[in-house]
């Protein structure tokens, strides 16, 4: 992969942990050296996200590594299931367990027969391929395939935000703005912010929403899966700028066959135009070149707006 002077690129294991850690009532058990988990907890804290899950490590020592003993994993799984009774327990490999070839999947499959009320979900990525994007895509789909349930009560005026990830700089503000706009313009309710601020229950009920708002391309597979399985349409775009946002709202309105609240649009447009006017004046007087850096969808959206 290479030499980095600044931050190396996060890998797929980090994508997994950063995705799961903000889900309330989620349980995660990592099979690997304790330091990996401890470092992750401290590193994660700087992303301005809230840890909502149960997270633990089994730790691992030289004997486990040399002899391939996995007893501590069996005991830890049993302990978590009996003490916490989580509906879902994600059992994660580590770089060490991957390198020595521990078969987390088989272990979970064997142990599953002991637990009726907890689903063991094996995450076998050891983090060696170094691909955050693929990791995010995979974990999103794994969560949805294992947790989303058949709809009980379809809600025609609700949606899920899909692809809200804590590695996005303004993930929280972006979600809140989407919620504000969709409430104001279309009187829609957000059911699930997947996954930066949600609960296991909300994920289970994602199938009850009438549309999915996809704000990140890594979440597209999730949207397509939900469309195919539960007939939920999706809009894939990030709203930036007056034109972009208006278009985005229109797309959602058309998909759901709803009328937009023009008063809300007029009010917001008026405020926005005042701000845009000032920026245009400054740019005219002091033209600047800019570098846009960030995740693919953010860069694409801001570039259109800029």
């Amino acid at each position, binding site marked *: 992969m290479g030499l980095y002077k600044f931050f190396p690129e996060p890998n797929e294991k980090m994508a997994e942990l950063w995705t799961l850690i903000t889900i309330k009532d989620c349980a995660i058990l990592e099979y690997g050296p304790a330091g990996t988990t401890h470092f992750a*907890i401290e590193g994660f804290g700087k992303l301005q996200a809230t840890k909502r899950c149960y997270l633990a490590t089994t730790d691992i020592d030289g004997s486990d590594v040399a002899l391939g003993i996995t007893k501590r994993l069996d005991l830890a799984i049993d302990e978590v299931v009996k003490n916490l009774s989580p509906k879902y327990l994600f059992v994660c490999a580590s*770089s060490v367990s991957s*390198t020595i070839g521990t078969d987390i999947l088989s272990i979970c499959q064997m142990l599953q027969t002991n637990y009726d009320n907890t689903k063991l979900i094996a995450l076998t990525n050891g983090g060696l391929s170094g691909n955050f994007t693929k990791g995010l895509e995979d974990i999103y789909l794994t969560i949805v395939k294992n947790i989303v349930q058949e709809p009980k009560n379809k809600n025609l005026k609700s949606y899920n935000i899909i692809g809200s990830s804590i590695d996005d700089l303004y993930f929280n503000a972006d979600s809140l703005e989407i919620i504000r706009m969709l409430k104001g313009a279309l009187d829609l309710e957000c059911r699930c912010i997947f996954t930066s601020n949600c609960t296991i229950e909300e994920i289970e009920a994602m199938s009850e929403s009438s549309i999915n708002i996809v704000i990140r391309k890594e979440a597209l597979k999730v949207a397509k899966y939900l469309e195919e399985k539960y007939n939920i349409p999706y809009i894939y775009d990030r709203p930036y700028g007056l034109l972009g946002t208006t278009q985005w709202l229109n797309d959602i309105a058309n998909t759901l066959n709803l009328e937009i609240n023009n008063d809300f649009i007029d009010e917001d447009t008026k405020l926005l135009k005042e701000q845009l006017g000032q920026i245009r004046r400054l740019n005219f007087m002091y033209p600047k070149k800019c570098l846009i850096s960030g995740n693919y969808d953010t860069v694409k959206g801001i570039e259109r707006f800029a």
Partner: protein
Amino acid sequence: MNETLNKLNKLSNIKENKDIKSCSNAIFPGSHCPLFGATMIAAKLEGLATVIIGTSECTYYNKDFSVLRNGGIDKDNTWSYVMSEKEVVFGNQDGLKKAIKQIDQTNPKGILIVSTCVPELIGYDIIGLCNDLQDDVNAILMPVQTEHFNLSSHMPGITRTLEALSSIMKPQEKVEKTVNVLGWRGKSLKNSELFKLLEEQGVSVHLTLPTEGSIDSIIEAPKAELNLVLDFTALPLAKKMQERFNIPYVEFDRILDLDKIEAAYKEIEKALNISFGDKLEKFKNDAVISIEEAKNTLIGKSFVYGNTLFNVFKFTHFLVSLGMKTDYIQIRELYEGDEIYIDKLLELGCNPYTAKIANIGPLDDVYKVIKPNLYIGHEDPVRLSRLGIVQTANEGVDGLGFELPMQLATSLAKVLNSKDNSDNAMLKMMKAMGGN
């Protein structure tokens, strides 16, 4: 019997590290890894570049920590060599050599090469690599292995890094009344009792490793007449320096025993040919008086030992000798000399449950049975407060010399008294409202 406590050994059954059990199989947050320890030492050393060899996870989080430690990315000289899947399978020593040569071109005086779990697992020979490459680069190459699956915590990372730094030292002409301070990771020592005494005697500090150091000062470290070892992690370094450069050392590692403090001061006097005069007696007497006063509050109070910078057994012995009690102590691992204090504790009738450190998740279960007055170390303050357990992480207990046991005893007494005072205040309020 409590399920959690059932898993644990009592102190009398602790003979080796494997006797120290974890209070649960699912652990939170877990110990820090030795890589963390290496970065604690290396991050702030001017003139040193560090390259971490490992996965993105290890290198990313470590970089994050290193940047924090340095107060900004511009000041940080930590590099990351991230191994690809192909490299893990097939190895790539050539790629690593190329990377080190590239770092060398930025002209650091030393390059610390740190291998982590995965490269160690697959047998990367970084010691051999350094030997092989040394002639091709200008910087001095120092290998440090930090495989967590073989090492219990971040402490071996600290020890190994300090030892590795000794390879950069060169013979120097000795400068009289000059000392090196090894292993101190706390606040500035300038206002400590020990350092004020040394300053009064005209003794100067050449190097404080790792808190205030540079590669240049490490290279010249052998000019000191004496090494003061202020933390056990620096003992192997001190021994190496004694062997290579004939520099004696005195251990002054957060000693709490007043007689041992006096003995350590005497050793310093002898090594530097100085005399602290009657100040030692005065300081010792002051300590005796303050500790006796604090004892009034401490006697009979119980504590759980979580984690501090002190040696767990020396710390526990000190408090138990003042009349405190404990039924639960958490231990990182056993170190040389611990058996002496374990025996002393058992002789005092103190035989607590022992548990592996850094696992606070399941302690609710323990508190139901143990019901301590005080928790010493880092824990969830909300949980402790709900259970009526006072907590201290030894804030302000950072001196050296006789002041240290004095600070500890008075600090604990103050913390325990504040709990009592608030209860009394509530009683007063209830009475004022007409209650009994």
